[in-house]
């Protein structure tokens, strides 16, 4: 005890003597050059470099979180955090200057391409691509819709190589309308070169090649039989521009509708009644739509997957975000239509299985304006709660 005390006193004396000696040493140190940020992590005077590094830190984390918490009907709070964080980074006006942005997209696309090689045994697997782009894969066919590379203002988000790989893995490309957010000639060419069919609205790319089928006569449901899928093309519009609304009937595996850039008041008359004619499982539709409720009521799908979020060509205020989609869908909860919020490169399985809440084998019924699921004589809410 005594020795310990003595040692302590000795140390204190040494410390105090050192204090006296060192008091006159001048202060120093401010960063003088821009190099070596990875060594000291000091960014004073370099805000742009700081933000670039922050993005480099965040994008891989977001990617990891999204993998850990994949798309689901009930958005998990972990996933929600990842999505709203992604929104923050994608609403940075200088997003394209961040080194980590393009690798983030590329790694997700590469992962998606790998996953596309897996067989889908039941139902429909939905892959979300940039903007309004989707790929639908079943056991027997793979359909691409509105695939665009994006990045018109700066650099393409989907590289030529990715586009080529997608074309190789798909059987057909559907294009809803001529707007560059939905249609891209390079993508269509890749499909044509791969010997795949491309279906586009009438008048678009008439000189592209023989495999392009121009369609969409007003009031005509052409009902094209493409083997593993029957394609119904409905004559929608974006303003005065033709917008094909596609209904893809995968013959017992699910029926999926894609509305492209549908936006025309004259079309509501038939959209309001679409559910009378088609038993839609999944509606793929743009989230940023003041008439989203009417769209949902018209199609009455069992599930909605939104699109068009974070279209990087738009100004920040018009760049739809995942959090606004979530808010909007929450505000439409009374419709009882489940939704899945997906981001680039993700997959969601719409399974043909009664073990799932959402099942293409169940029947939809409309009671008091709300959609319910009828299964084996019982009535369920779309989220699986038995009501009768």
């Amino acid at each position, binding site marked *: 005890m005594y020795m310990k005390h003595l040692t302590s006193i000795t140390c204190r004396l040494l410390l105090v003597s050192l204090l006296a000696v060192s008091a006159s040493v*001048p202060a120093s140190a401010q960063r003088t050059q821009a190099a070596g940020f990875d060594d000291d992590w000091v960014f004073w005077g370099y805000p742009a470099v700081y933000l670039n590094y922050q993005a480099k830190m965040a994008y891989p984390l977001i990617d990891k979180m999204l993998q850990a918490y994949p798309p689901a009907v009930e958005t998990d709070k972990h996933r929600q955090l990842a999505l709203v964080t992604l929104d923050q980074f994608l609403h940075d006006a200088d997003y394209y200057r961040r080194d980590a942005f393009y690798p983030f997209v590329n790694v997700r696309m590469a992962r998606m391409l790998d996953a596309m090689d897996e067989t889908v045994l039941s139902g429909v697997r939905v892959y979300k691509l940039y903007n309004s782009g989707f790929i639908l894969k079943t056991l027997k066919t793979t359909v691409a819709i509105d695939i665009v590379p994006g990045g018109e203002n700066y650099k393409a988000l989907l590289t030529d190589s990715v586009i080529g790989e997608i074309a190789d893995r798909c059987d057909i490309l559907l294009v809803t309308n001529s707007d560059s957010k939905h249609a891209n000639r390079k993508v269509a060419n890749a499909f044509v070169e791969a010997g795949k069919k491309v279906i586009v609205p009438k008048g678009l790319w008439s000189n592209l090649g023989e495999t392009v089928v121009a369609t969409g006569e007003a009031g005509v449901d052409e009902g094209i039989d493409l083997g593993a899928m029957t394609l119904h093309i409905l004559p929608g519009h974006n303003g005065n521009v033709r917008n094909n609304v596609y209904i893809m009937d995968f013959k017992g595996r699910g029926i999926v509708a894609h509305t492209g850039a549908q936006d025309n008041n004259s079309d509501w008359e038939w959209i309001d009644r679409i559910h009378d004619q088609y038993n839609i499982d999944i509606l793929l539709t743009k989230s940023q739509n003041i008439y989203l409720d009417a769209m949902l009521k018209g199609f009455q799908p069992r599930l909605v997957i939104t699109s068009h979020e974070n279209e990087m060509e738009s100004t920040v205020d018009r760049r739809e975000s995942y959090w606004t989609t979530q808010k909007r869908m929450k505000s439409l909860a009374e419709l009882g239509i489940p939704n899945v919020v997906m981001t680039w490169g993700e997959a969601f399985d719409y399974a043909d299985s009664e073990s799932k809440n959402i099942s293409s084998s169940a029947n939809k019924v409309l009671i008091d304006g709300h959609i319910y699921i009828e299964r084996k004589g019982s009535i369920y809410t779309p989220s699986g709660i038995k009501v009768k």
Partner: protein
Amino acid sequence: MKRTIFTALVLMSVAFSSTAQTSSENPYANNYIYWGYLADYKLGQASSAFTAIDDMLQTYPPQIDIALPREMALVSLDQLLHDTDNDQTEPFYTFINARMERVLKDLDRPVEKGLRIYKMYNDGFIIKSKKATVAIDVIPGGSDSKPFIKDSIIFGICDKCDALFLSHCHPDHVNLRIAKSFAARGKRVIAPKDWWVGVDPMIQPIEVENKIVDIEFGELDLTLHVLPGHQGDVYNNINVVEFHGEGTVAQTGDQWGTQDLEWIDHVHESYDIDILMPNCWINDMERHLRGFGAKMLITGHENELGEHSIDHREAYWITMKKMEQLAELNMPNVLMTWGEWYEYQR
């Protein structure tokens, strides 16, 4: 027909709103569409993000091994706090005050053994033992006219503390209103040399140049050792607080200067420090860690939103990177943000 009327109304609203665009004029607000209303969009985004972050941080509280969701939350918070559009906005105030309100409430929960460390705004900490609750460098942030933390919360917190120790005279570490609130309740405030001289007998500037001052707080069962640090030429008290039998913490304020490094190298020979609380941007972190030889580390000063430009709003992810680089020291660290607490036992 209804839709046509609605569209016409929308168009009219847009035309009228072109001069002054505020949230009340956004015809799409109920649809969460913000075309032409960037500020409103940013507010909505910040609100959603702060809420999600707060939720996640509560689910994954501070611990030595940081979980992926907590890491995500902290980096998300960094992004929000490095976007100056979010400065002094309602979502920010809501976030920080909700977290501080939890501290206010939790301070009523007794500590049976060891120490509970509360992280406050900037470099502020509150350390609670069974017998004492000590505040160090606690400030409300913002300005006196519009503080980040509401008076009702920050002064409520101060009411639950027994003493206030201050490192140096910079306004991101000291606040006269806070100091006076301690003094008014007969609680001692230990301030740096020459600071607030004569303001109140309970506010005691300490002369520590080239020496160490030990102050006993018998009723609190603790000893304060004030070490003579500097930030440049400014006196910076390094407060080593020994909670007898429970643990010893050292808060280094804005210690910065090579003139002190030689004696700092030997601090561990004199004090058995459990927790070192340096500011996250301290010069030569490694040398300080070796010098204090603490059992664990909790950094302070991240995301100071005051006068600093974003390049010097030190981010949580930067602290993580620095800690990764110092992993070989095997010093556990707990990365905390505002309004969190961590239980420490020897």
